[in-house]
C-alpha cells in the first residue's frame, strides 16, 4: 500500500506506522549515536566540567514556514539560545512533537530538516524525541516541545543579579526581524528583504564571553521584544533602564511592516539576537567582537542602566526629541491596529 501523504492518528500509536515515520522521516536527518539506539532514554557521555544547565521550550508558529526559517529550525535555535545566553555550552537537545491529524508529511519533513540544520549549525545533537498525534481540529498543525542540556564552565557567573547601574545595554543586531516577518506573512505583506533573524547563537555568545570583557547578563529578546526583556531585567536587578531611540537599530523593511500594522519595533520578537548588559568600559571591545562575526553584524549600544527611581518607570525611552517617555510592559502580545 502506498505510504500516506498526511499524518494519521495511527502514526502516534507506537506501532508499524510510528516506526515507519521514525525510520523514514526522522532518522535520515537526525542521525547521531544516541538517537540511533532508539532506546527509551539517551545515555550521554560524561559532561564537560562545570554546572549543568537545563532549559525547556514550547513552539508553535503561524505560518509554520517563513522566510528565514520554519518551526523545526526555530525550535532548535530557541532552545540553544536559551542555554547560550545563560552562559551554558549546549550539549544535547530533546525534540518532542504533537502533530495534528492531516498534517502533510512533506511539511513535517521540512520541520525535521530544519531542526537538523539548526542542530548542525549549533554543534549540538538531538538525542531523544517523541511523537504524538491528536485528532484533526485539536492541534495547530504541529507543536514542538524541547528540552536543552548545557554546561556552564567553572567560574562563569552570568545573570541579572550582576546587572548594575552604569552598565551599557548592547544589542547584537537590528531588532524585530522575526516578528515583523511572521506578521507580514499573516497579513499579506511581501518583500524580498523580509527575513526572520532566526539563528543559533551559541558560537556568538562564546565569542563575547571570551573577548576579555566582564559581561554581566545576556538575554535573547524573543516574544515581547527588547522592551519586554528590559522590563524583566529591570525588575530582577532592581534597576532603571534608559534606551536611546536614536540608537535603536531597525531595518527599513521591518520599520515599514511595523508602520503598516501599527506595531512598535521595541516590542517585536527577535530569534537571533542577544541583548547584553556589561560595564560601559567594556562595551566597545564587545561590540568589536560581535561585529566581527556574521551573526553579530550591526551590533550597537542602545542604552544604559541607572539606579531605580522610587515611583518611576523601570524602563524609559529617550526620544529623538530629547523627551523621555516610559516604555510599559505589554498587556498581551502586540496586535495589529488600524487606529
Amino acid at each position, binding site marked *: 500500500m502506498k505510504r500516506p501523504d498526511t499524518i494519521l492518528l495511527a502514526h502516534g500509536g507506537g506501532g508499524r506506522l510510528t516506526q515507519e515515520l521514525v525510520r523514514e522521516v526522522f532518522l535520515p536527518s537526525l542521525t547521531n549515536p544516541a538517537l540511533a539506539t532508539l532506546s527509551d532514554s539517551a545515555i550521554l557521555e560524561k559532561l564537560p566540567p562545570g554546572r549543568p544547565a537545563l532549559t525547556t521550550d514550547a513552539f508553535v508558529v503561524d505560518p509554520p514556514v517563513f522566510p528565514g526559517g520554519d518551526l523545526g529550525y526555530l525550535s532548535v535555535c530557541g532552545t540553544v539560545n536559551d542555554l547560550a545566553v545563560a552562559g551554558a555550552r549546549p550539549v544535547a537537545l530533546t525534540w518532542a512533537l504533537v502533530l495534528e491529524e492531516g498534517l502533510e508529511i512533506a511539511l513535517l519533513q521540512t520541520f525535521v530538516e530544519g531542526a537538523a540544520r539548526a542542530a548542525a549549525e549549533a554543534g549540538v545533537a538531538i538525542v531523544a524525541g517523541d511523537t504524538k498525534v491528536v485528532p484533526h481540529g485539536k492541534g495547530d498543525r504541529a507543536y514542538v516541545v524541547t528540552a536543552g542540556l548545557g554546561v556552564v564552565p567553572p567560574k562563569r557567573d552570568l545573570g541579572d543579579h550582576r546587572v548594575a547601574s552604569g552598565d551599557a545595554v548592547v544589542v547584537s543586531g537590528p531588532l524585530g526581524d522575526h516578528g515583523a516577518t511572521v506578521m507580514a506573512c499573516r497579513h499579506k505583506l511581501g518583500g524580498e528583504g523580509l527575513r526572520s533573524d532566526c539563528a543559533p547563537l551559541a558560537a556568538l555568545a562564546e565569542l563575547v564571553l571570551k573577548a576579555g570583557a566582564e559581561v554581566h547578563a545576556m538575554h535573547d529578546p524573543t516574544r515581547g521584544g527588547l522592551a519586554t526583556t528590559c522590563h524583566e531585567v529591570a525588575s530582577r536587578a532592581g534597576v532603571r533602564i534608559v534606551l536611546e531611540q536614536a540608537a535603536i537599530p531597525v531595518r527599513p523593511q521591518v520599520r515599514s511592516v511595523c508602520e503598516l500594522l501599527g506595531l512598535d519595533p521595541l516590542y517585536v520578537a527577535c530569534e537571533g539576537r542577544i541583548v547584553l548588559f556589561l560595564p560601559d568600559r567594556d562595551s566597545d571591545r564587545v561590540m568589536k567582537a560581535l561585529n566581527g562575526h556574521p551573526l553579530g553584524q550591526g551590533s550597537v549600544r542602545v542604552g544604559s542602566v541607572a539606579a531605580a527611581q522610587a515611583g518611576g518607570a523601570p524602563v524609559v525611552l529617550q526620544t529623538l526629541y530629547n*523627551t*523621555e517617555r516610559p516604555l510599559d510592559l*505589554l*498587556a498581551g502580545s502586540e496586535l495589529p*491596529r488600524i*487606529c
Partner: protein
Amino acid sequence: MSAPSPYGEPQAVAALAERVMKAAERLSRRVTLMEVCGTHTHAIAAAGLRRLLPAKVRLIAGPGCPVCVTPVGYVDRAEALARRPGTIVTTFGDLLRVPSSRGSLERVRGEGADVRIVYSPRDALQIARENPGSTVVFLAVGFETTVPTVAAALAEAESDGVGNFLILSGHKIMPPPMRALARDPEVQVDGYLLPGHVSVITGSNAFAFVAEEFGIPAVVVGFTPTDVLRGVEALVGCLAAGKPEVINLYSRVVRPEGNTTAQALVARFFTTADVVWRGLGSIPGSGLALRPEFAHRDAALLEVEVPEPVEPAGCRCGEVLKGSIDPPECPLFATACTPTSPVGACMVSSEGTCAAWYRHERLATGDAR
C-alpha cells in the same frame, strides 16, 4: 538607525517647539487645545510632545478613539454573534480586548468561538469567499477614514455575489460630537487639532463649521511631530490674534473637497443614525447605519441573545473623553483599571487616552500633564 523623515527631523521639531513657546507669550491666559483622533493621541504620546509645550498650552485628547467610544452593547452583540453557530467574526485588532459586559472577544475566542483579526475589510471578504458555509461578520468600527474601505468591501461583495459577508456597523462620524462638545458648558476647548486622515476623505471644508458656527479655530494636521507642532503654533497664533479660522496644514494629502469617490460609495451604503457614544450618551446623526436596501448585509438583524449591557461602576471614561478630567483624576486609574485589567475602553485601546497616559505620561519625571 535610518535617519528620521524630514517630517520628524529633530532640529525642525526643536525649532518649532521654540516657535510655539514664543507664540504663547502673546496669550493672555492658559488655553486648552483638543485633538480628536486616536492616532494623534498615540503619535503625541510616542514622541513625548507634551513635554515640549509651554505651560500656557494644554493639549488634551477628545473622543477620537473609535474603540473607546464603542458602547458596551456593541461588544456584547459582537460576542453573541461569535457564539452563534456557523459564524466567523472578523475584526480589526483594536477591538479584540475591549471589555464587554462580561468578557471580551478575546475571551470568547478562548472559549472556542471563531474570531479572526484582519488588517483590511477585504481580508474579511476573502474569508467569506473561502468559507461559503459560514456567515462572516465584519465588526465595522471606525470613523470617516475607515468607512469607505468597508463600503468598498460591501460593493465588491454585492457585485461578486458573496452573500455570506455581513457587517455590524459601529461607525461614527466626527462633526456631530464636535458640535456637541462645542455646545457643552462643561467643556472648555479653545482650539482643535483636526484629524488628518478623516479629512482626506471628508475634505477640510467639512470642518469649516468649527470656526464659522462656534468661533473656535481649528487646524487640519498630519501625524508627524512637525505636523502636530505646526498645528499647535497655528492655533496659538489664531487665539493670540483673536481670529478663529480653519486652516489646512496637511495639504500634501488633504484637499478642500476631500475624496468624492469615497464619499459617494459611503452614501450608497450608509445613512446617518442617532447612536450612543460611550461616555457621551446618544448624539443625533453621529453614527452610520446600513441603508434598508442592504438589510441582507446587516448583522444587527441576525437573531442573537444579547444581555442587558453592564456599564462598569466608577468608570469615568465619559469625562475623560470630553476632556473634562485627565485620567489620573479617575479613581480607578492605575489601580483597578490598568492595561492588563482594563475597566473602561479608554484603557484597552493602546491609544485610548487612559492607556496612552498610563504608558507614556504617568511616570514622566516632573510634570504630569
